């Protein structure tokens, strides 16, 4: 039997979630599409082994793996090994579409920029919690870290945003 019906049932509904995550991780339209397409190829191969119906966390795990494989090849400097000292210097000015930026006020642009500038390990847990509204347990599974680490990274991400000069300039 073909895996296509399972793929369409369990993975396709989460294409938006996968793209949103890839988009926030790569901060680039084309790279995000490449990462999601690669993730779909992998998901189609392994969807037969997916038990249960939690396609979202499963697919996001694959998207994240595809992203890190892509990142190792294209932006190895961005994968920082250490929580405490991770500094992300690679700021992509193209974090938003020009028209999207124009539609939103300068203030929104500031907050979106501040999120885009978060170091990778903090950005990914923040996106999964605040935009995808996933639980600590699901995030821990996707990011392959203990729940305690999810909590500390989330706290760090929020702290960085609340202290961000971009955010305060907007107020």
């Amino acid at each position, binding site marked *: 039997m*073909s895996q296509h019906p399972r793929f*369409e049932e369990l993975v396709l509904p989460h294409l938006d979630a996968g*793209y949103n995550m890839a988009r926030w991780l790569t901060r680039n*339209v084309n790279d995000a*599409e490449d990462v999601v397409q690669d993730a779909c*190829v992998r998901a189609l191969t392994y969807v037969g082994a997916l038990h249960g119906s939690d396609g979202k966390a499963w697919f996001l795990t694959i998207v994240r793996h595809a992203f890190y494989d892509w990142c190792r090849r294209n932006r190895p400097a961005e994968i920082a090994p250490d929580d405490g000292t991770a500094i992300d210097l690679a700021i992509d000015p193209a974090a938003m579409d020009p028209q999207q930026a124009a539609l939103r006020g300068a203030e929104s642009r500031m907050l979106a920029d501040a999120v885009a500038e978060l170091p990778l390990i903090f950005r990914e847990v923040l996106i999964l919690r605040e935009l995808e509204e996933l639980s600590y347990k699901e995030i821990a599974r996707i990011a392959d870290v203990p729940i305690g680490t999810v*909590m500390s990274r989330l706290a760090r991400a929020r702290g960085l945003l609340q202290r961000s000069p971009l955010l305060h300039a907007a107020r």
Partner: protein
Amino acid sequence: MNCNEAGALVAAHADDELGGFRRHSIEKHLRSCAGCATKHQGVLALRARLRAEVPYFRAPPALHTRVRAMLADTHAVAPARPRLEPNRWRWLTGGALAGCTATVLAWVVGTAVIDWRANEDVAVEAVATHVRATLNNHLIEVASSDQHTVKPWLSARLDYSPPVQDLADEGFVLAGGRLDTLEKRPVATLVYRYRQHTIDVFVRPEAAHAPSSLRTVRGFNVAYATGAGMDWLAVSDVSADVLSTFVQRLARAAASQ
């Protein structure tokens, strides 16, 4: 509950991760402690702003189209594989019941099916690898049209030394090489350009089962040859006859070196 205990739980409460007693205690503490209540409000306010101001990027129509196209491409080949397993078991069961002769017969057929499947699987895997490399724009790790650059680069990373030929005067220009895995083993991949096409050639020490000649997987042609103690497996969208001639030519040239 004091502020020390509450500090660690404020964010978890804002994330709706606490239940029962701990939830009850933190709610009680927040009512009486302005400092912790401010922290709690801070998380909620940040969330409200994030959800209101930070864009949620939905998959663009072009991506939907690409994924649909990928599904359509794989449709032709996907149904063929999983069906094989039950067939083989039926053969084996039937053989056991029918007695010695039938068992031997089933064993022969079973072995043939396993061999055939091994070829099928390696062809499918090679095409998947080729497609992945193309989509990721990751075709070449060592870019050179000089076989004396590509060969040592590959040899240094593998436990064998793949023969590398340039057949530029026949139209097949060596573009470079990369490392892949095929059947869980590292394999040398040579990348050739032929007119507008890319040809991936996977070179590895000769496997136990003799490769069959030519297959088409997801619209890509897969051609095999053996020579110089190596298996040569070429994947490309060039026509089957060109690909087949090319891979045999490579294997022969390596053997005569």
